[in-house]
């Protein structure tokens, strides 16, 4: 197991470096001088030269990258072109909101998706299975920003049960009521994917010999399904759930925009509009790094669930 973890870690490190290079090049590839972008069109040549010198923009590219990496390791992501605030500070302010939203969405997707996948596999071809199949198909075809708007229209505008937007005033009750709609909206796609995968994985497992053995021992049906079937059926689902979590973090840009949720996704979108590259860079770096770490964790869980992986 130790060697396996080490091997996975060694794969993650070059990936993180790739991410840092891509994100660094982001600013180099964009047309226009960053110093001019920072100071505005009517800046004097002297102030531009001074700024270029201050930020190391006059250094050769590899040296600029090393400087960027050095600052990165110290937690310095530069300052926003727009607000002049430190990017690290902005991310620290918005990241918890995005994480909260993505974790809540994933929790909903798993809490509903796993049991539904098992039930529809066991009752294959039944009414619930048929209905679920249709609902899943419709759900994966729905744009999440549109389902978000429909949720607002129905639950906030028509019924007046839940707030339309924002993150609440700090009390638990208000925060929860603000979280429900965006989390449900963001969860829909992953939920559909998880139901579909759990169902097919469960069907595969239920056809295995060890399930027949367990049944023939006279164990109760649900004991067989939950204890023998579910643990094995979960293995492929874990990987996909990990990938889905990364997609949730990226998809949050849409949900956060619909619900005015003050997270990193919305920060990126506004930063793209104002060509605020340090902010884009920091946010992308944060999301991609989280994505890589989550996938690393998923691989480790996977190895724990399926011992065959460790020795391959």
């Amino acid at each position, binding site marked *: 197991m130790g060697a396996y973890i080490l091997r996975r870690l060694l794969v993650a490190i070059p990936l*993180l470096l790739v991410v840092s290079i*891509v994100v660094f090049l982001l600013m180099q590839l964009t047309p226009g001088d960053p110093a001019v972008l920072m100071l505005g069109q009517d800046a004097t040549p002297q102030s531009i030269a001074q700024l270029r010198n201050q930020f190391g923009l006059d250094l050769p590219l590899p040296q600029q990258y090393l400087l960027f990496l050095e600052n990165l390791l110290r937690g310095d992501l530069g300052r926003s072109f727009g607000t002049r605030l430190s990017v690290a500070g902005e991310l620290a302010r918005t990241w918890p909101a995005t994480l909260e939203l993505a974790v809540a969405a994933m929790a909903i997707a798993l809490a509903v998706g796993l049991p539904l996948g098992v039930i529809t596999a066991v009752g294959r071809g039944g009414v619930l299975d048929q209905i679920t199949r249709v609902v899943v198909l419709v759900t994966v*075809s729905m744009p999440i920003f*549109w389902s978000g*708007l*429909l949720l607002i229209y129905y639950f906030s505008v028509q019924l007046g049960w839940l707030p339309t937007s924002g993150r609440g005033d700090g009390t638990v009750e208000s925060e929860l009521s603000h979280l429900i709609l965006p989390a449900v909206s963001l969860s829909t796609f992953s939920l559909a994917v998880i139901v579909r995968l759990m169902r097919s994985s469960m069907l595969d497992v239920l056809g295995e010999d060890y399930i027949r053995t367990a049944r023939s021992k006279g164990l109760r049906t649900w004991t067989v399904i939950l204890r023998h079937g579910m643990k094995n059926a979960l293995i492929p689902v874990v990987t996909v759930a990990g990938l889905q979590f990364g997609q949730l973090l*990226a998809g949050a840009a849409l949900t956060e925009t619909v619900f005015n949720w003050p997270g990193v996704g919305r920060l990126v979108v506004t930063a793209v509009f104002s060509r605020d590259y340090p902010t884009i860079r920091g946010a992308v770096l944060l999301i991609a790094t989280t994505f890589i770490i989550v996938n690393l964790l998923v691989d480790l869980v996977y190895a724990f669930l399926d011992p065959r992986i460790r020795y391959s």
Partner: protein
Amino acid sequence: MTGQGTTRRATVVPRASVSLWRETARRFMRDRAAVLGLVIIALIVLAAITAPLLAPYDPIEQTLSLRRTPPSPQHLLGMDELGRDVLSRLMYGANQTLVSGVFVVLIGLVIGVPLGLVAGYAGGFVEGLAMRFVDGMLAFPAFLLAIVIVAVLGPTLQNATIAIGIATIPAFSRLVRGNVLSVKRNEYVVAAVSTGAPTGRILWGHILPNVSASIIVLSTVQLANAILSVAGLSFLGLGAQPPTPEWGLMLRSGREYIQQAPHITIAPGMAIMLLVLSFNLVGDGLRDALDPRLRR
């Protein structure tokens, strides 16, 4: 199929493959949901092509006095926030959506498929290099990668299409590489190699036809995803720009008025869902038809 390929002479192969496609078509046509999907796609394509002739109004012309009016016999889907006919905008928008969706998949195909073919066939250093490149792209969630590319290129529908197309490449190259790895061990490939056939012909004539079924299925599913992603970028303001009649952008501008005039957002959302659903149905149908073993 493997057995046929090895025992019959090469001249028989075309006939065998024609009957394979005919058999696939026959199985596909028996799948009612998939056929329904195909019919809906055909109708939307027709609406897109005939929009300049059949759309009741100009998609950009504003009648300010009719702003946000609900559906009526004159304006079947109502008027939007600037007094433009929603139905006409939907018809013209179908064009934008379909064209950008197709281009996304083309980018994925043209770059991703050769990358996967060469990587899977060559193995060794080339494969390592190509796959590390793909892994690097996969380090970013696809939609985030698309946002990054738009940030570099600038927000237009064309750039959004390119961005999502690039983000689609890994899906194609991984699938093709995986398939090539198993196909290249087949006897007909080994036989072709031993007769000294040039690599290009082996890849094009023997390997590609045998991975094409999964490429077709993936293309259909990716087309569905592409439509969602392009609409998503436009919804964020990072794709099509006003006054282009594009479905995602229509949702963006209509969302402000969801309380007073929900019809402005319901129509384009429904259109996106219907089109994506249809491509998903066709994709599922194709997968079942091409590989009956997968049917559940």
